[in-house]
């Protein structure tokens, strides 16, 4: 069930667009901002947008950054594309998996971190690079990763 707060935000997003359908990605993001991921709300969303549940789910599963499964509090998006790969992505990934005790795509047992290798982040001049939340981290080394994880652990 969508909360009243979510519904209000969704209705305002719909008003801002040409149609409910055109607002779909923004609406999925609203729900994801509140819950971290998008679950069975898909059905309620479809009703509000005048779309079928299948259509909304088709979009939700198509986009890389709409999550249909629970994710951790902090998403570690590590770039696995060509420049980062050349500059040491594999070493950084191995270091992260060892430190966090998870494989790529998994979430730590305490729900703090999800590690997700992603397509080129456009940070090629600062490779290897990753993003956590709104923060961008470039020219990664294993030492830097340790310091970054330290800061996020709470």
């Amino acid at each position: 069930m969508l909360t009243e707060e979510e519904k209000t935000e969704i209705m305002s997003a719909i008003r801002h667009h040409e149609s409910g359908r055109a607002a779909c990605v923004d609406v999925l993001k609203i729900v994801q901002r509140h819950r971290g991921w998008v679950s069975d709300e898909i059905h309620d969303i479809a009703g509000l947008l005048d779309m079928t549940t299948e259509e909304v789910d088709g979009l939700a599963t198509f986009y890389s950054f709409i999550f249909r499964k629970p994710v951790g509090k902090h998403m570690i998006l590590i770039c696995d594309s060509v420049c980062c790969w050349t500059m040491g992505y594999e070493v950084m990934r191995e270091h992260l998996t060892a430190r966090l005790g998870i494989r790529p795509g998994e979430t730590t047992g305490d729900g703090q971190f999800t590690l997700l290798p992603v397509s080129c982040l456009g940070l090629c001049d600062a490779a290897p690079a990753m993003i956590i939340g709104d923060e961008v981290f470039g020219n990664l080394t294993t030492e830097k990763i340790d310091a970054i994880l330290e800061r996020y652990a709470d």
Partner: protein
Amino acid sequence: MTTERPLTGSMKLNGEPLDIREYEKAGGYQAFRKALGSMTPAEIQSVVKDSGLRGRGGAGFPTGQKWSFMPAVDTVPGPRYLIANADEMEPGTFKDRVLIEGNPHQLIEGIIISAYALQVDRAYIFLRCDYRRGAMRLLRALEEAYAANYAGKNILGSGFTLDIRLHVSAGRYICGEETALLNALEGRRPVPRAKPPHPQTCGLWGRPTVINNTETFCNIPHIVDKGAAWFKGLGLTEGGTKIYTASGRVKRPGAWELPLGTPLRDLLNEHAGGMADGYSFRAVIPGGASTDFLLEEHLDVNMDFTAPQKFGSRLGTGGLIVLDDRTCPVGLVSNLIHFFSRESCGWCTPCREGLPWVAKTLQAIEDGEGRPEDIGILEGHTRLLGPGNTFCFLAPGAMEPLQSALTYFRDDFERHIREKRCPWR
């Protein structure tokens, strides 16, 4: 050779964006005032056409010509749209990020002038979601532009009205393909549409629509301000400047605005500072992941829209990806193909089925499990997934670095298979 850098010259060295005051102090919104105050839409279209500006999104289509395919308002009245493509997900490419983060108003001014030239009253900026800093800066700049009435209703009393909206996407390389982008904006599954009809006549919600790359729009204010002849004079071999970037094991990875046609060798040695200590040059992918490798013997090529074709490659996005001697070429190509395979939208069979197959074959070779016949299979796929066999250019683009790698690094492929291991590991 000119050293003028109209697109980046006024950017701050500390990486902060210019706000509206600073932008105007540096000459910003002058072209916009000139355009709305004293030029007709047709006059703007003609100066853009005369400038010879070619699209900076990768394909190099002449912008003036693209615009001319949009029907006039009196023949097709009703809504029409303009879209700035800032989806930038081509591996090795980050020029639009540099332009947006450093000077968001320049893009907005380019959009306003272009919208006026095409008599469009609704524009979208389609931004990839990982450019969060860019999104914040664009929103801020849009607020400033609206507050100054450079956008919105009856702009500066001219009678021209323009609404500009920022659409932040949710990740997927295919959304940058212009017709998939249209579906994305409409809230449909972002797979490409059949062409024709072209977006200029039947685009967003079936209405006339022009889509240009971010860097293309950033050139418009300068062309309108200083004229077509000035713009042509900026380049070395073709008109204008280009934002070139370089990444990989070079001394100074980065972005530089340089005359269009700057030789590849100068980009690598002078601007990127040559190879990092302990590494030597092996090859370069010159224009983002969808372009063919070039070797040492090709480095004198002028990086413009025509010259690299002599050597089977392209300017593409101008994003250089450097391959050094300590990186496995098979591993690098395998990484590229994994990207394309993951990002395939799945709409047409050759790409949906072929790319994962190519990816698997490359991975097997890299892991020492390749068979001698695999090279022939890969070569076959460069034709099967080549131009004309797929619905959009994603798959043919993916085949460009593979086909040149199979030619230039043949020995490396064969050695992996013969020795049943990656010699670099």
